[in-house]
């Protein structure tokens, strides 16, 4: 009978929607999808020379992005995401056209065009070898041309190798492996950290430490030949740290300053022509420091705003009058040789004060800007840039990075622009319903003019026709796209019956909680929940739904858990999700390693949790006596497990049952599953997943019963990399494990395969992606688990027909399934080749689980691909019979097809893609998909196509 209905339904669908297409038309891009681009938390910034027309700031970030920002608007004019293992270490401008980056332990030197971000040249400084040399990475622009191409050259220091390269094309002029040279001499094992221009013309100094860190090491190198002319080392009484710099003193001399290894002393040495004599003079610091920064002239600073001055006798505290909590910028050389300046930026709750200080320690400019940076967690970094005003006096602009990763450009006492960069590092995502209409006004909406709207609609229909028929001009197409983007209905701030409109609440790494409207991706509210100014670094590490399915008129709440103010404590913050208000915040006197979401809510509809600390003590949250009574009944059936990747072990725990009226318990370890290979991945089903059917009907009308126990865990182990390197055959083993008892339900070995493994578990199946060494290709496998016992207990035909005819078939069959009486399972599996690498994997979710599933793959190319589940079906036959055809099985093909139209991201990329979060709409057909990385992307899909 259901098949009859489904057949009729199919007929209706096909007859009414005959021309429906899988992909979208070009002009439909942006109708339901949007994307936003970010750069991440800025770590380094350089500014385009002031005589260039296009004013740009070139930044590199914690997300390993190199980007050019428009200084007038803050827009990204171009950006590049470097690979994860290719960390940017230094950026500098060479002339007007070349932006030089050095990355991956100094191995890669690249030059980028400043205007368009084009890669101009790329060179490798060394070939990685087994014996890695300690040492720093430094690149020094030489204001001189040594190869005669009229272009300034650069000197590169990487892992003890010193090179002179042409700035125009990166070609090598000379290279000198200084570390190799040191091995013969007395300075054996020395490490070089920095490059500095020497006091002798045509020479540079490479400075570092001896192997025992007991003396400085200075090598004077001739720039023409690359020959080391002189070496010197000056012994120190205290062990030295790698942080050191050269400071120009007023007497035109130079001095070397360094920190001791414990950060408690400053060491000073006047630099003259080599060889140097004497000993390092040490000055005690009042508070330990880790970093030194030159401020121009004979000023330099340690951590915080502690300014020191170098003079003939050594080091003395500077005279500059700066607030102790101010953040200092690096030194900046003013145009027309007006000396060097630096800025100090100080945040208070009402304003931000910028002081530009010259190399004498005198404040040149003091500006107060109405900007509350404390609500952004305080200032993290600041960068100073100058420009020439119309009256030829220098003007200053400051680029401020707040601790919540926000980026501000301050100029002439105003905030020119602001970027919310926290969204480049999203940690957790939660979809939240909007308030019902007329109840909580989140946004003022203008009354709708019906006639105007009708006219506009008609115009757009015409436009759409023209675009489809390819009559439209590019301007008209752009107008249509713009209209679709701003289509009023999807942008409303109220609940809709189809559940298409939602808030996406994102918890970010720097501690900013942002709610995005899924209509166009605008930020509806954002709250800083990280550590405040002066507090140690640390932001919430997890976000949990507290009240999601609520009465319509109360706002949903999320619970954030993060490090507390005292060590070993946890800060639990509740945030209301319609306005972003923090409703409560409390310190819990224990750490949280696991969160157990009990199937129990308190009388206000709030979820009750069990929080497990590191010592496996279980605490009730909220720990009231009332809640203790509420959870009493479920406690005996609560279990948890811990994956230990370091030891390749999974351990299971249970709660003691006999203790009544308590709010904390000691968990008992009940099982342990040590793997002989390295544990590489584990994955379980999402707890809110809805499954419609317990059965799968085959072509011959027989039934398979899905094994739908929620407490099922997938784990994958692989041969450890060091054994593979020794020539051992790599294997990958996939396990299906019962998470309550630790019993392995199924195990399969893939010979010649290795990780990394990406996997997704939904309903009764697991799909996982790995690398096949044998085939030299990526592979994907599917395992589908069926309950063999349920098929034996299935009702007979007459019982089923009778109950079915009465509409009571839900009363039939197995009601409950227990891990303590595990059924026999049958596992079907199949493997396929897949031509793309996968970074992250997810699955579509719909409101009652009737719609077929799409597997959402975040590919190595930073795109999102929706793969139909029926392609990954272990029942795909090699020679299909008519029964197989009737079941709708596709004949087996070892290659999974990649259909370009199935890329949800169309022609875009989600730079640095890390995760995909899907959620059901209220309409069964539709699933909402949010992909995040450095960029964010949202769309909605209909996995069963319509």
């Amino acid at each position, binding site marked *: 009978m*259901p098949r009859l209905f489904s057949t009729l339904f199919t007929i209706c669908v096909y007859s009414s929607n005959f021309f429906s297409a899988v992909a979208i038309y070009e002009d439909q891009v942006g109708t339901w999808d949007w994307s936003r681009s970010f750069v991440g938390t800025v770590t380094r910034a350089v500014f385009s020379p002031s005589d260039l027309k296009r004013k740009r700031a070139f930044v590199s970030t914690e997300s390993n992005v190199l980007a050019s920002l428009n200084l007038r608007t803050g827009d990204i004019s171009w950006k590049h995401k470097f690979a994860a293992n290719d960390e940017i270490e230094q950026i500098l401008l060479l002339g007007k056209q070349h932006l030089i980056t050095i990355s991956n332990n100094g191995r890669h030197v690249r030059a980028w065009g400043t205007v368009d971000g084009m890669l101009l040249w790329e060179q490798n400084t060394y070939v990685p070898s087994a014996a890695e040399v300690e040492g720093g990475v430094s690149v020094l622009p030489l204001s001189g041309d040594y190869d005669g191409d009229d272009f300034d050259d650069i000197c590169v220091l990487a892992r003890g190798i010193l090179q002179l390269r042409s700035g125009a094309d990166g070609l090598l002029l000379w290279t000198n492996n200084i570390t190799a040279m040191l091995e013969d001499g007395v300075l054996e094992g020395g490490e070089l950290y920095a490059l500095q221009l020497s006091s002798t013309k045509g020479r540079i100094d490479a400075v570092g430490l001896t192997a025992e860190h007991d003396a400085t090491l200075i090598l004077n190198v001739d720039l023409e030949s690359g020959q080391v002319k002189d070496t010197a080392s000056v012994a120190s009484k205290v062990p030295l740290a790698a942080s050191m710099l050269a400071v120009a003193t007023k007497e035109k001399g130079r001095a070397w300053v360094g920190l001791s290894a414990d950060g408690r002393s400053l060491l000073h040495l006047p630099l003259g022509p080599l060889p140097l004599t004497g000993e390092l003079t040490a000055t005690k610091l009042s508070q330990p420091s880790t970093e030194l920064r030159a401020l121009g002239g004979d000023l330099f600073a340690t951590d915080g705003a502690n300014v020191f001055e170098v003079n003939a006798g050594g080091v003395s505290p500077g005279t500059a009058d700066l607030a102790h909590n101010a953040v200092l910028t690096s030194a900046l050389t003013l145009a027309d040789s007006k000396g060097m300046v630096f800025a100090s930026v100080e945040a208070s709750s009402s304003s931000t004060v910028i002081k530009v200080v010259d190399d004498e320690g005198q404040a040149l400019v003091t500006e107060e800007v109405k900007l509350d940076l404390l609500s952004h967690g305080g200032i993290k970094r600041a960068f100073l840039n100058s420009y020439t005003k119309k009256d030829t006096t220098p003007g200053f602009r400051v680029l401020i990075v707040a601790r919540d990763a926000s980026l501000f450009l301050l100029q002439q006492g105003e905030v020119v622009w602001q970027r919310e960069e926290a969204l480049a590092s999203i940690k957790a995502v939660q979809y939240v319903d909007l308030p019902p209409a007329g109840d909580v006004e989140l946004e003022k909406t203008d009354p709708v003019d019906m006639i105007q709207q009708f006219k506009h609609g008609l115009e757009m229909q015409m436009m759409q026709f023209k675009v489809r028929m390819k009559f439209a001009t590019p301007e008209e197409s752009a107008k249509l796209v713009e209209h679709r983007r701003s289509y009023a209905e999807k942008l409303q701030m109220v609940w809709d019956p189809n559940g298409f409109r939602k808030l996406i609440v994102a918890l970010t790494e720097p501690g900013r909680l942002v709610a995005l409207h899924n209509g166009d991706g605008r930020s509806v509210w954002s709250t800083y929940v990280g550590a405040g100014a002066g507090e140690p670094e640390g932001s919430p590490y997890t976000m949990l739904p507290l009240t999601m399915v609520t009465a319509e008129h109360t706002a949903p709440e999320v619970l954030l858990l993060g490090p507390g103010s005292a060590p070993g404590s946890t800060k639990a913050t509740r945030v209301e999700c319609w306005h972003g208000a923090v409703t409560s915040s409390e310190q819990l006197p224990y750490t949280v390693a696991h*969160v157990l979401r009990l199937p129990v809510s308190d009388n206000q509809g709030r979820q009750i949790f069990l929080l497990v600390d590191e010592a496996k003590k279980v605490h009730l949250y909220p720990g009231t006596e009332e809640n203790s009574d509420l959870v009493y009944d479920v406690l005996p059936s609560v279990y948890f497990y811990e994956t230990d990747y370091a030891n390749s072990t999974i351990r299971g725990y249970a709660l003691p049952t006999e203790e009544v009226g308590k709010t904390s318990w000691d968990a008992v370890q009940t099982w342990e599953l040590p793997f002989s290979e390295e544990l590489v991945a584990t994955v*379980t089903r999402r707890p809110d997943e809805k499954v419609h059917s317990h059965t799968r009907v085959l072509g011959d009308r027989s039934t398979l019963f899905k094994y739908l126990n929620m407490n099922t865990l997938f784990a994958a182990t692989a041969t450890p990399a060091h054994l593979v390197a020794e020539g051992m055959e790599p294997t990958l083993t996939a396990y299906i494990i019962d998470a309550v008892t630790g019993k392995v339900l199924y195990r399969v070995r893939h010979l010649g395969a290795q990780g990394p493994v990406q996997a997704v578990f939904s309903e009764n199946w697991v799909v996982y992606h790995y690398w096949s060494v044998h085939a030299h290709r990526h592979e994907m496998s599917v395992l589908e688990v069926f309950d063999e016992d349920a098929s034996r207990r299935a009702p007979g035909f007459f019982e089923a027909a009778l109950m079915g005819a009465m509409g009571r078939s839900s009363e039939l069959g197995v009601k409950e399934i227990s891990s303590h009486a595990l059924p026999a399972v049958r596992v079907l599996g199949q493997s396929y080749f897949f031509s793309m690498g996968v970074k992250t994997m997810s699955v579509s979710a719909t409101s009652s689980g009737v719609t077929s599933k799409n597997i959402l793959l975040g590919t190595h190319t930073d795109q999102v691909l929706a793969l139909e589940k029926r392609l990954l079906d272990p029942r795909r036959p090699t020679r299909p019979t008519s029964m197989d055809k009737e079941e709708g099985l596709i004949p087996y093909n070892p290659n999974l097809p990649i259909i370009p139209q199935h890329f949800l991201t169309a022609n875009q990329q989600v730079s640095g893609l890390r995760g995909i979060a899907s959620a059901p709409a209220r309409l069964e057909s539709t699933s909402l998909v949010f992909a995040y990385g450095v960029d964010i992307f949202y769309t909605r899909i209909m996995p069963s196509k319509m």
Partner: protein
Amino acid sequence: MAGKWKMDFTEGSHKSQSLPNPVGYVTSLTDVGESGAVKKHEVDPELKQKKVWELAQSPFKNVAMMAFMMWMSGNSIQVFSIGITFTGIFQPIKAIMGSGPLFARFADAKTETVLPRLQFCAIQFGGFLFALYKLNTMGLMPTHTSDWISSLAVPQAMEYSYGGNPLM
């Protein structure tokens, strides 16, 4: 004078009544008066019975044609085969339902209508059965357990298990 040259057409009929009919003309064959109707009722009852039986057998050709078309349309599920099969189901039902008034007009003391009607229904029922068979071969009949238990409730796990990698 005037009367001499006058021709009165209306008078002709009156005159003709007095005239005898032409030779060989029999009034009873053309007159549709009451005497004729009585004669029709007196049609041979055997002939009538034969006509009823003919009506009873008449759907056979139709049903055979329908069956042939169903056979021709194949067992795959398409708009055409589904349409034919559904017509094959509903047409006999309609015909059987409407067989009462169809045979009622023949009903009288001398004519047997029950048996012919039964035969009529049997032929139509045969067509109906064929259509059901056809539906079954197409796989649209709920004759298997699996057709009734697809909405079987998903069993709930009795334990609750959570966990994963430690958060910190």
